């Protein structure tokens, strides 16, 4: 099998799968081991496709469970019109719970509640589990053996991440004692420089 054929089969598989495919899954498409190309040949095919897609409507991206072909971000505005349903909006309570699971996993529901200062409703955990963004990864060895939650590969895929390392950086905690030495307080550079890389304009709703 030559490089061109390999590329065609890889492209066909990625376009038809409707889900990300990793190298093993791509190899399996070729049949049993005797007819599978080398992994390097696959990587070359993926790179060649990425080149082909340059300037086109689609691109190849790598997420947690493999490679997927998706519409370029600049075209999402148009493509989104294909579906009449508005994309689901998730409540702040759900997103905060998800953030705690993502950054502090494995974590129990009680620990999430400690940080948020309010109870976490059962329906939120249920939604996160049903969406397969979160799963039970074990039980904490304390009375009641509460479930420990962690995020899934589907979570990473959904948000276009290869691994948890790619999550936006968590703000650092400042020590109360640092206040006394770091006066004046109003240094505009100090408190927020460690904040998230992409500053979303999302705070607007707080005023």
């Amino acid at each position: 099998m030559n490089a061109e054929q390999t590329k065609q089969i890889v492209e066909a598989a990625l376009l038809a799968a409707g889900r990300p495919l990793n190298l093993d899954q791509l190899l399996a498409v070729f049949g049993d081991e005797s007819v599978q190309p080398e992994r390097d040949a696959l990587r070359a095919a993926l790179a060649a496709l990425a080149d082909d897609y340059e300037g086109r409507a689609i691109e190849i991206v790598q997420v947690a469970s493999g490679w997927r072909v998706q519409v370029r971000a600049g075209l999402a505005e148009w493509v989104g019109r294909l579906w009449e349903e508005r994309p689901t909006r998730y409540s702040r309570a759900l997103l905060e719970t998800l953030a705690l699971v993502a950054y502090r996993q494995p974590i129990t529901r009680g620990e999430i509640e400690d940080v948020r200062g309010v109870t976490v409703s059962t329906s939120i955990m249920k939604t996160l589990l049903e969406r397969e963004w979160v799963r039970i990864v074990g039980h904490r060895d304390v009375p009641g053996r509460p479930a420990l939650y962690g995020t899934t590969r589907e979570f990473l895929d959904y948000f276009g991440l290869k691994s948890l390392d790619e999550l936006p950086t968590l703000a650092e905690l400042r020590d109360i004692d640092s206040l006394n030495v770091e006066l004046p307080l109003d240094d505009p550079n100090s408190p927020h420089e460690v904040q998230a890389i992409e500053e979303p304009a999302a705070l607007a709703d707080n005023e």
Partner: protein
Amino acid sequence: MTAPEQSEMPFAVVQGNPVLALPRDLYIPPDALEVFLETFEGPLDLLLYLIKRQNLDVLDIPIAEITRQYMGYIELMQEMRLELAAEYLVMAAMLAEIKSRMLLPRPAGNEDEEADPRAELIRRLQEYERYKQAAEDIEALPRLHRDVFQADVEAPERKVVQMLAEVTLKELLLAFREALQRSEMFAHHHIQRETLSVRQRMGEVLGRLKADEFTDFSTLFAPEEGRHGVVVTFLAVLELMKESLIEIVQAEPYAPIHVKAASASIADGDTALTTD
């Protein structure tokens, strides 16, 4: 319901000065206020809002002022008959306690050892704030079906092929042992190695026989199997007879023996032998 009057609680900050009284001419529909109050994700969120609104640093909250504002909101929520989560009241108590401790003069000389009464609250506020921010960051990530659309092209012959599961002999035997232990079959040793080959042969013989047609008895035996094989087949036939699974007929002594699988119509004279 009338518009609430809250003398102490600033509804807005105008040029740095909190507007404490709701202007008489400004009417906030109760519904809108309710929606506003319901947007808070709990006491920490409400406190953060109060602090941020005044551009205060979380590390240096004026406890007395913030407590007063917080209590104002709590009263308002109660007045609006919003279902007030217990956490809000717990926080109110915590604020009151911190406030009172702040008023106590600190013993001179050991400022370092005496923790700031606000420390725990500040830690919790910061902790909550960073995850609140993280939630907003996650919300801003490009999301599948909202910002990202995966190619999904029609494939020819999209049929699902079910692969067969694999089992090892050991797994099979372990499963069997467990079933036996439950059934106490171990108590009766009526299955011996020898009978296994007989049982296999019983199946083989039965498989070759038909219910509506006789088979020559001698054809059941394969001489090439040797004496042992012939004996096994014979035992199998006897066992099948005992279990009323086959019919054997012989027209007269020394005439050929014929065998057929048992069927209900022929076996009516028999007392049905169920397995023991």
